[in-house]
Each structure stands twice: as structure tokens, then as C-alpha cells.
């Protein structure tokens, strides 16, 4: 090897060694807690980094909280790989479908003992609370909730001859049909804006008295007539009543949503639908009504709750719990939810929250959530079920299969999937 290249190589290797040594520096005496937040925006970061964490650290000398903001798109892989490496965060935020999988695999610590001592569980709305429960044990604390309701235009509805929001599926279809305006194949006003989503199907399924799987989570119930009817109604909104374009009226992330841009007369949405109206078309606000989603057999408001879990790998569980309960203090919880325009999942936080008072419509969301709220049933396989359900829904809506065939096909798949867990236990 020539002299120069040898020297270059030597310097490079020295550089690498130096880098390795940099990595080793910093032995710490203090305790570090790692907190992962998935629901955030700039205001949230200002609140947590600028106010909440400093206050917690001041109250607990020697404790340092390392807050990481990780978007939902990448939460799964970051969480999975951290658990695989044994370096999971002490406290982390997850969504409505997580409890079964986390509990089943030992990725969330059961908190029943802490909660019993804490004694504030009753303050939470039941639908929110249930999101963190798997087989009778509690694995986290609800951090924010989003109930899905019917948001409609009062002015358009009364012009179409309805004095009240639609009560039943039939009324919903009829009202949507009357309010739809098309120019050729183009929708100028969708009577009902629905996305192609498993969440909408689950709503219709529940309203029709159906369920996805049995209580034990061992057998699919999607081959029931209730399920087929629910999916048929969903498909009919596109193809029979023609109240919404087949591909929905989608939007790029961040675009002015369909309802707020006055191109839909009704939609099923959470409080974010309201937020969008406030933000993009505040003059529309007096014309916007909120109602429970129309029913078939029963009234259901589906509630999606994101919550905080604690890692069983945490070396400082007591402190982690203190951090969790600190974030859950009514004022802190309300402040966090205010930055994101979500519903705080506990009553005392709702009662004291300024932004809830300023948005009287939000109180209606809370009332509906409290009265009719229902959360997703807990099961370890939720992610696969969600993906499979979405596939079944899409194949029916894009008419590659009939609703019945789509569900029957997926039901068989789901049975096989559930049998895998039962077989391995």
C-alpha cells in the first residue's frame, strides 16, 4: 500500500475510534425517564417541553425527562425495535387498538395496583377507560379521546325538508340523497361524506347490533347477517343512493377538509370536523349541527382513545407512574388536549378546561360520548384485523366482491388467525 493511502486509512480508523469513544462519554448519576408522545403539534411541544416537564423535574430533583415526539407513521417500528433491544421508553403513547397486543406480549405493565392506590379511575369516561383494559387488567391511562358523531349542515337539511337530523339509516340515506348535487359525473355537494374505512364499517356494524368477534376473541362473528347488512348499507351509500363519489372525497394531509369547504352536507367525524370548520370556515359554525350517528338497532358513538402505557422494561416504575399521574392531573390533561383539540378523557379535566367552555359544541361531543360511547374490543390481533377489515371493506366498495362474499372470505381468514393464538397458548 502506498504511503499516502496508508496514512489516510490510519487517520480514518483513528477517526472512527474517536467516534466510538465519543459514544461512551457521559456517565450519569441522575435518573432519566424516557417519554414518547405520538399526538403532538408545535403547541403541544411548547407545552410539554416548556412547562410540564420542567415542572415535573423541579418537583423531582435528580430526575430528567427525555421527551421524544414520534409520529404515528413510525411509532410501530420504533416501539418494536426498542422493545427488541431492551431499551423501550418508560412511558409511551399508543392508540385505541394497542392494548391487547401490548398486554399479550408483555410490552405494557399492568397498572392495577398503582391505580387502586391512586383512586381516580372513576373520573374517566368509561369508553375511554375501556381502551386500556385487556382481560380485566388495566394497562394504561387514557390521554385523549375522539368520539365519532354525525356532523351536518342545518341549513341544507331543512332546505331538503328535514326538521331534525336523521335518526335512522333510512332517513340518513334519504336526507343524503336529497342534499347531493352532481354536475355530470362530478359531485358538487356530497350528501354524505364517508371515507372508505374500516372504522365506518365498524360503526355501522355496531349500530346494526353486530360484532367483529366473540367475547373471548376466539371466533369471528363477521359471517353474521348483521355484518352483511351493515356492509351492504355502506356500499349502497356509494352505489345505490349515490351520495358520495366511490373514491370518497379525499384530501391530501392538511388540505381544507371536504365538509369545511362546503362540499359535503353531512359527515361522520370526530371533534376534528368541528375544529376544521372553526379554522377554515368559522362563518359556517352557526349552521353546523351535531347528532349521534343514525341507528339501525342501537345507538352507538364509537370512541377512539390514545393512552399512556408504561414499559415493563422500565427501571424506574415508581417514577414513571408519577410522571403518568402528573400528566393526568386535570389541569395538565386539559392543557394537553387543548393544544390538539381533543376531548380530555376525564370529567374533572373537561369541567375545568377553558377551551371546552369556549367551544360549547364540544360539550355535545362529551355528552354523546358519555351516553353512547363504545371503544374497540381488546384483542392481541387488532392490527391484522384492522388491515383485513379494510381489505374486505374496500373489495366490497370497489365492487370486486359482494358485501357478503367479502365478509365471508375475511371471516374465514379471521377464524384461522384467531386459532393461531389459541393453538399456541
Amino acid at each position, binding site marked *: 500500500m502506498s504511503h499516502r493511502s496508508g496514512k489516510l486509512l490510519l487517520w480514518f480508523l483513528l477517526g472512527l475510534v474517536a467516534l466510538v469513544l465519543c459514544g461512551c462519554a457521559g456517565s450519569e448519576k441522575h435518573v432519566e425517564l424516557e417519554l414518547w408522545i405520538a399526538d403532538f403539534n408545535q403547541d403541544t411541544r411548547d407545552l410539554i417541553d416548556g412547562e410540564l416537564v420542567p415542572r415535573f423535574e423541579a418537583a423531582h430533583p435528580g430526575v430528567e425527562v427525555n421527551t421524544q415526539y414520534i409520529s404515528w407513521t413510525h411509532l410501530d417500528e420504533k416501539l418494536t425495535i426498542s422493545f427488541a433491544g431492551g431499551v423501550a421508553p418508560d412511558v409511551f403513547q399508543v392508540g385505541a387498538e394497542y392494548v391487547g397486543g401490548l398486554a399479550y*406480549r408483555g410490552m405494557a405493565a399492568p397498572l392495577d395496583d398503582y391505580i387502586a392506590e391512586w383512586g381516580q379511575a372513576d373520573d374517566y369516561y368509561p369508553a375511554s377507560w375501556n381502551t386500556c383494559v385487556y382481560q380485566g387488567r388495566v394497562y394504561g391511562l387514557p390521554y385523549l379521546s375522539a368520539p365519532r358523531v354525525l356532523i351536518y349542515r342545518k341549513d341544507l337539511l331543512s332546505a331538503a325538508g328535514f326538521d331534525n337530523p336523521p335518526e335512522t339509516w333510512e332517513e340518513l340515506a334519504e336526507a343524503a340523497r336529497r342534499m347531493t348535487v352532481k354536475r355530470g*359525473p362530478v359531485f358538487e355537494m356530497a350528501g354524505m361524506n364517508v371515507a372508505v374505512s374500516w372504522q365506518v364499517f365498524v360503526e355501522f356494524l355496531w349500530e346494526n347490533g353486530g360484532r367483529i368477534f366473540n367475547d373471548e376473541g376466539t371466533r369471528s362473528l363477521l359471517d353474521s347477517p348483521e355484518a352483511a347488512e351493515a356492509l351492504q348499507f355502506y356500499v349502497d351509500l356509494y352505489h345505490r343512493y349515490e351520495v358520495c*363519489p366511490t*373514491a*370518497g372525497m379525499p384530501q391530501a394531509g392538511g388540505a381544507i377538509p371536504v365538509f369545511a369547504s362546503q362540499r359535503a352536507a353531512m359527515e361522520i367525524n370526530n371533534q376534528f370536523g368541528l375544529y376544521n370548520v372553526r379554522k377554515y370556515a368559522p362563518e359556517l359554525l352557526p349552521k353546523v349541527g351535531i347528532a349521534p350517528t343514525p341507528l339501525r338497532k342501537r345507538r352507538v358513538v364509537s370512541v377512539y382513545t390514545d393512552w399512556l402505557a408504561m414499559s415493563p422494561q422500565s427501571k424506574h416504575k415508581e417514577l414513571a407512574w408519577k410522571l403518568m399521574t402528573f400528566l393526568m392531573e386535570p389541569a395538565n390533561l386539559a392543557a394537553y388536549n387543548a393544544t390538539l383539540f381533543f376531548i380530555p378523557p376525564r370529567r374533572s379535566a373537561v369541567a375545568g378546561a377553558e377551551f371546552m367552555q369556549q367551544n360549547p359544541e364540544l360539550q355535545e361531543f362529551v355528552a354523546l360520548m358519555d351516553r353512547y360511547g363504545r371503544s374497540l374490543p381488546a384483542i392481541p390481533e387488532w392490527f391484522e384485523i384492522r388491515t383485513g377489515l379494510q*381489505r374486505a371493506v*374496500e373489495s366490497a366498495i370497489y365492487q370486486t366482491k359482494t358485501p357478503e362474499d367479502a365478509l365471508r372470505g375475511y371471516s374465514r381468514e379471521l377464524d384461522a388467525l384467531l386459532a393461531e393464538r389459541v393453538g399456541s397458548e
Partner: protein
Amino acid sequence: MGRTTPIAKSQVRTASVFLTPGLALFFLFVLIPVVAAFYLSFCRYDIIHSPRWIGADNYARIAEDIGNRGVFYLSLRNTAQYAIGTIPIGMALALGLALLLNAGLRGVTLYRTTYYLPVVTSLVAVSLVWMWIYDPNYGLLNYALELLSRGLSFVAGREVLIAPQTWLADPGQAMPAIIAMSIWRGLGYNMVIYLAGLQGIPDHLYEAAIIDGATPWQRFRSITWPLLKPTTAFILVVSVIGASQVFAQVYVMTNGGPNNATTVIVHQIFQNAFSFMKMGYASAMAFVLFGIIFVMSLINLRLLRGGEVEYV
């Protein structure tokens, strides 16, 4: 090539010195993980608990899925569509572009930079911008259709309506839309490799050909194309590997939908590994993918073999 024993010996010695640092890193950070993944493909592994040996079950499941035309089968089909849609057009455009830019025009630097611009921007960012272009409500593409429709109406003297399309939300249009975006994004990349390859062709060959009265096409056929074969072989192999592993733009733009029209193999691997926590099954998929790419690469390299130079 005249080789004598001392040279051969020195070559072996040099080879071992030259290969050691690269291969050591390679062994640690590529080969060991690949072997580990291969082992996991015969296991049930949920990442939290230790892997449990289950033999070839994962592979049997894949075979069953393909037999039933299940999701993995669809992802294979979509990946093939993507590869066929992007590679030939992409390579032909890149070669044409490289030849144009190699012609010694003024302002070449500006052109080269412009065509390379999509490559330097992060895939996530360009995917977001293209989602916007394809947006059914605010999209630039639908706006272009509207302008076209207005122009046609003006010319025809009556209303000609071209309906706005839903692009990424339409099962029939989503994959072509992703393909178009990917060709746009990858063009500069292959162009640069071709440009580097063109620099290796000595001028005197062309000069001799011109003296012999060869037409430009003949010069391309008998000089440029044969001497670019190693470059073409490389681009083809790398493009096939890249297309087989397409993921980021799918993940950002459609997440596999609508109606599974854009789910691709790595999307399935990713979902199974990190959302369903089925690392074993995901690994088995990866090795099925490996088998496919490996065979195709061998075929590609065989096809482009020829002349006195060996390429693999």
C-alpha cells in the same frame, strides 16, 4: 494476460489486505443480520419472546397464500407491475438523457442539476408533494385537466367536460400514478451512472469510426452500446433490486390501497414485521423475494454478457 507466480502471490496478498476492512464491516453489519434473518424465517418470532423453531411453516404459509391468490400474491403481482412499469422506460429515458447531456452542449451543468434535483430531495418529501399533485380536490393534475377541458371547449365551440380523476384513490390509477412519480424521481440517478459510464469510452474510437464513415446510429450500435454494457448491466440489476424493494413512496402515498392495488412485497414485510409482530413470517417473505431477485439478476447478467469482458 501474462501472469507469473510472484505476481499471483502478490495479488492474493493484496486482495486479502484490500478486502479485509470492507468485508469485516460487511460481515458484521450485513452478513450476520442476514443469516439471523434467515434463521428467523424458520421461527415464530414476535420480537419480545425468544424465537421458536417451527420448520418451514412460514414458507408453507406463503405458498398457501400464493395458491389462494391472497395478499402476498397481490403484492408480488403489484411489485412486478411496478418493475415493468418503471424499469424499461426509466432506463431508456436515462440513457437518452445521458447521451444528450454528453453531447457537449452549452448549459449542460444546469440541465444535469435540474434532472438530478428529484434524487437529492428526500423521498418522503417528494411523495408528499406528489400526493398534492394527484389530489382529487386541489391537485395540480386535475387543474391541468380542467384547463385542457376549457381549451377543448373553446376550440370545439361547445362544452367538453373532462371529469377530474381521483388518481391515488382509484384502484386502476393508483399504481400508474406511483410509477409515473417513481420514473420522475429515479431518472437523474440512472442518468448519472450512464454519464459516468460514457466518460469511460475513449474518444479515439469515435474518431476512427467517423473516419470510416459510420453513421451516428452505427456508431451507437457498434461503440456506445457494447461499451456501455457493464453500465447497463449494473443499472438493470440495481433497478430490479430497487424496484423489488419499492416501499417508501407506497407507504406515504397509498399505504398499499385502494383495494390492495399498490401493496408491494416490502410493504407486506414491513406490516408483518412491525405492526403484526410476525418477524419470522416477514423474514420468510424477504427470502422468497431474495430468491426471485437472485434468479432475475442472474438472467439479467447472462443476457448482457458478451464480448471479451465478463460482467459477473
